[in-house]
């Protein structure tokens, strides 16, 4: 479904992302781990088109999308969340999701219709909010949400776009411990239906282990390993590079 | 040949004037993040203070040491006003950029109007040494001494600024502050003092531009600062915010371009070219020629 071929991004001499080959099958959940600064977020940026690679290609359903701008990729079904929550702070939570739904359904370039009048958009947005459990916060300004709620809103924004491939950048970062299980189940439900593929960066190993079908390990921009959780966890290099010495 | 020499040297004179205005603007923006529309006021204050001193300050006059004294007084006055503006008006508004725009726009309107209310709208003859009205023959070209004076002053200011930035402690603080203000504080340095200082330096450079501009134009009028300011802004943006060296390069480019196009092209084309240069530079390199680093 999604594939990268020799994806490389250099700044000057330094390769931030170094010749990455990845394959993501429909319905697959691929976890990405790696130390801080390994290039995980940068890899996401290359895949979603926020940065242009210096070398290599990104393929979606076999088609080369390397040259497309972010919004074109999104239209093709590529959705993502951001490591630092990136929601529309001055809009209400509901309005945030409606914007995402509207973006997905088209009809955003309508200058004279009342946005609020579109029942279908509203219904779809409410459904997405329901799904992440933010319904009761609908009228709050997104900027005033607690961190964990913002993470949920991010996922609602993602859901609203009904992407086929989802890239989640540390969805658990900053989510308080008691909220983690809930969010995990939301994320789990993403893949449950409809053959969606998920690529998720996460530092919480327990979450990764619970969700991922396979785990990719990044280090210094390069892919160190990409295999089933058990194999990866047993891999000595990965142990050293990421997990750290015995605990 | 001597036309080229003449145009080059007078273009550099113009560039020098732009540089004097732009360097302070650039530093203030680079370090303190303040888009200072009131910078033209400092120039006006410098010019009028020099003019006033030469008639009223004991020891000061249009000639010789008296002239130097008058200019020194003007520069100090510009610097003083700049510091006052920073302490009273800008300091409470750091990080509220749009409000700063409102305040500095308001200040530039009110300040110029105040100068006009005090000394009238008409240009006044500027007291200046006789030699500044003469020309020097350079390779057959009659180059105005006032232009040469500007060039010398700009080179001295550039050198002094670079030396200051490079070798003094405050220079170090400013260069570091342009890069990362917070970390400077975390080293136990009161970075707000550095803000005040760049305002003082910027005000002094602008006031010097005002005083020497007075020599160059032969007159002083309230609106003089405003008309130079727009080119100074262009120079700052082309050069890259916060970079003194960038401002110097950009000033030279703008000055020469204006001068040569005005001679070889039709009138008005020079200004159009400068504006075009700005657009092209920004479209190709949005951060300007030298980016946001205080170079030493």
């Amino acid at each position, binding site marked *: 479904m999604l594939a990268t071929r020799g994806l490389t991004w250099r700044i000057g001499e330094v390769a931030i992302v170094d010749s990455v080959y990845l394959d993501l099958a429909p319905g697959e959940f691929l976890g990405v781990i790696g130390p801080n600064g390994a290039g995980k977020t940068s890899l996401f940026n290359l895949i979603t088109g926020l940065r242009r690679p210096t070398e290599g290609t990104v393929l979606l359903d076999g088609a080369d999308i390397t040259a497309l701008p972010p919004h074109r990729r999104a239209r093709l079904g590529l959705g993502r969340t951001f490591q630092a929550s990136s929601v529309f702070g001055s809009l209400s939570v509901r309005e945030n999701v409606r914007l995402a739904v509207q973006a997905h359904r088209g009809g955003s370039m309508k200058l004279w219709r009342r946005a609020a009048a579109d029942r279908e958009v509203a219904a779809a947005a409410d459904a997405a909010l329901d799904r992440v459990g933010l319904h009761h916060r609908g009228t709050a300004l997104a900027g005033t949400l607690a961190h964990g709620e913002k993470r949920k809103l991010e996922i609602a924004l993602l859901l609203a776009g009904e992407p086929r491939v989802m890239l989640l950048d540390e969805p658990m970062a900053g989510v308080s*411990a008691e909220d983690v299980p809930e969010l995990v189940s939301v994320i789990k439900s993403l893949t449950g239906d409809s053959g969606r593929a998920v690529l998720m960066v996460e*530092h919480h190993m327990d979450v990764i282990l619970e969700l991922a079908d396979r785990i990719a390990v990044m280090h210094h921009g390069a892919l160190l390993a990409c295999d089933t959780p058990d194999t990866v966890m047993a891999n000595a290099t990965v142990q050293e590079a990421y*997990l*750290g010495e015995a*605990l | 040949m001597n036309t080229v020499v003449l145009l080059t040297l007078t273009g550099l004179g113009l560039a020098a004037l732009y540089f004097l205005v732009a360097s302070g603007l650039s530093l203030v923006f680079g370090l303190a993040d303040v888009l200072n529309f009131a910078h033209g006021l400092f120039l006006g204050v410098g010019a009028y203070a020099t003019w006033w001193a030469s008639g009223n300050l004991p020891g000061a006059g249009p000639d010789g040491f008296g002239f130097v004294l008058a200019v020194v007084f003007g520069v100090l006055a510009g610097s003083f006003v700049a510091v006052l503006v920073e302490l009273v008006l800008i300091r409470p508004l750091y990080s509220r950029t749009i409000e700063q725009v409102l305040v500095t726009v308001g200040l530039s309107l009110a300040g110029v109007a105040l100068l006009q209310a005090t000394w009238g709208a008409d240009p006044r003859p500027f007291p200046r040494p006789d030699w500044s009205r003469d020309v020097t023959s350079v390779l057959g070209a009659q180059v105005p001494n006032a232009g040469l004076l500007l060039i010398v002053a700009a080179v001295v200011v550039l050198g002094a600024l670079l030396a200051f930035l490079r070798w003094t402690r405050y220079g170090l603080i400013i260069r570091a502050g342009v890069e990362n203000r917070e970390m400077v*504080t975390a080293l136990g340095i009161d970075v707000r003092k550095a803000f005040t200082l760049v305002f003082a330096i910027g005000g002094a450079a602008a006031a010097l531009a005002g005083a020497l501009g007075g020599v160059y134009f032969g007159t002083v009028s309230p609106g003089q600062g405003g008309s130079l300011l727009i080119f100074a802004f262009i120079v700052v943006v082309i050069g890259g915010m916060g970079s003194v060296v960038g401002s110097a390069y950009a000033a030279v480019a703008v000055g020469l371009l204006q001068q040569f196009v005005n001679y070889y092209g039709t009138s008005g084309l020079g200004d159009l070219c400068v504006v075009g240069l700005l657009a092209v530079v920004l479209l190709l390199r949005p951060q300007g020629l030298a980016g946001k680093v205080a170079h030493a």
Partner: protein
Amino acid sequence: MNASSEPVLSVEDLSVRIAGLHILQGVSFEVAPTGVTVLLGRNGVGKTTTLRAIVGLTPRGGEVRGSVRMGARSLLARPTHRLVRDGLGYVPEDRCVFAALTVAENLRLAERRGVTPAYDKVFALFPELERRGRQRAGSLSGGQQQMLAIGRVLLNDNRLLLVDEPTKGLAPKVVTEVAEVLERVAESVPVLLVEQNLAVVRRLATDAVVLSAGQVAWTGDARELLLETALTKSLLGVGSGSGEVHA
């Protein structure tokens, strides 16, 4: 905790809100007058936020409540530069050396009026810095930059050092070096250290504070914590030992 003497720093009920996020929620702990107190916790629990709140570098719009005292003096109302001059040395997480300045200039910036800078001490610890005096700090390797960041603070006498993840992104050999340096520094100055590398923690820490979701989950003797594998695991998670390579 060294109950015998007064703590050098005491944090009480520290709360930090940034942009609506309640990042720290009533954190209290003390820093012993000798040795290394280490602040542990997973990524994003608020370790950096704690240190920055102590030195008064909470970002704009952030709201800090509670009390932080060094001896009898309350720190929260005082501007950062005063705190630092009073002997609070801070080495930030991402090093923050001034890239455009040379090494010597970086050091010179840290000098203080009326205080003789202890260059001999710093150069004895990091001979590299003396040799590379004229090199631009931006072109130093990560480890060298870290040395500079620490050296810069050591030029002056400090009553307490706050050090945020000094070994992040460093090669194992350099990690060991940095750890050695900190060990020596800690002989004369108490240190509050944020560190993810458990090997380093093990080597240096005398006391430990563990944060979890913006709250203190555990405080006590560091060895006690590290000996109890189960405790460590439950508090710090598996994936916390990131950021170093032992290859």
